[in-house]
């Protein structure tokens, strides 16, 4: 399984449709304070099935929808798409396709819905898809800003999930 592309529209500060190719090797992201770098990480987490707005720095899920600026009105829909290559993976037989397009949408005041290759599914289906491949939204392989010290500062019993991920 490999993550090939992220597409965002109306998610936090990314109001214009934006595609972000994820290539092999090391990709660096730079930019001034507040330009939207961490928002990209949160869009990926959201696409992987994150349910809690708090984990994405919001108070409620609508906080993730573009909220407007001095010159633009706020939006009512946010969309995140993840293009995943499953060639050679057991999932290829299950979905009879080499690629999956995972999509999640947020409708202001009405909640979210989820899609795999255009077909509406439960959010749980997306979460299960990624849980098997040890790439869940809360995997230790995604370290949010300021959270690197969390593992060493946590209590011993809270660190156990680290092992479960390795198992």
């Amino acid at each position, binding site marked *: *399984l*490999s*993550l090939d592309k992220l597409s965002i529209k109306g998610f*936090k*500060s*990314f*109001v*214009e449709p*934006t595609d*972000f190719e*994820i*290539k*092999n*090797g*090391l*990709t*660096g*992201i*730079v*930019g*001034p304070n507040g*330009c*939207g*770098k*961490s*928002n*990209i*990480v949160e869009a*990926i987490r959201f696409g992987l099935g994150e349910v809690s707005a708090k984990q994405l720095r919001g108070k409620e899920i609508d906080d993730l929808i573009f909220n407007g*600026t*001095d*010159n*633009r009105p706020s939006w009512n829909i946010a969309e995140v798409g993840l293009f995943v290559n499953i060639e050679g993976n057991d999932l290829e037989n299950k979905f009879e396709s080499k690629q999956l397009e995972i999509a999640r949408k947020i409708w202001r005041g009405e909640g979210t819905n989820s899609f795999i290759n255009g077909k509406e599914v439960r959010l749980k289906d997306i979460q299960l898809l990624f849980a098997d*491949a040890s*790439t869940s939204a809360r995997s*230790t*392989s*995604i*370290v*949010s*800003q300021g*959270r*690197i*010290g*969390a*593992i*060493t*500062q946590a*209590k*011993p*019993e*809270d*660190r*156990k999930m*680290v*092992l*479960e*991920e*390795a*198992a």
Partner: protein
Amino acid sequence: GVTRLKDAFKIVNENFERLFTKLFGGGKAYLKLIQNDEDPLNSGLEIFASPPGKKMQNITLLSGGEQALTAISLLFAVFMANPSPFCILDEVDAPLDDNNVDRFCSMVEEISEKVQTKFIIITHNRMTMSRVDRLYGVTMPEEGISQIVSVELEEAVKYAE
């Protein structure tokens, strides 16, 4: 249940000892599984670490940079036990001095060669910017609206610290 956890612990601990010594250029570190006898699946994980030349102490006494480096060793120890197809690091190099940033970058390069993993690294550090395969800049040509553009290193270092 329990055997799986014990096996995972053994691999992660071996990785952790090796990666810690590599990142710190010496010293030693290990993990301890604290088993809760009534409920073996609910055990905890203790971390012991001592940078080169220093005594083994409680990890809360380590410095900001040393804690970050210890955490990165643990993170990669888990990662090597069960590599994920991607790894996203948001400014984990912020507390590190130049020597440690250099060792951090070398480790990421090494891991990325060993396993087919895609790394996404958000950074303000010039050295890290110079060690990645490609750079994207996030800008706000209109205030409050983000855009992603591909950039060269000379342009990127403008955003460096």
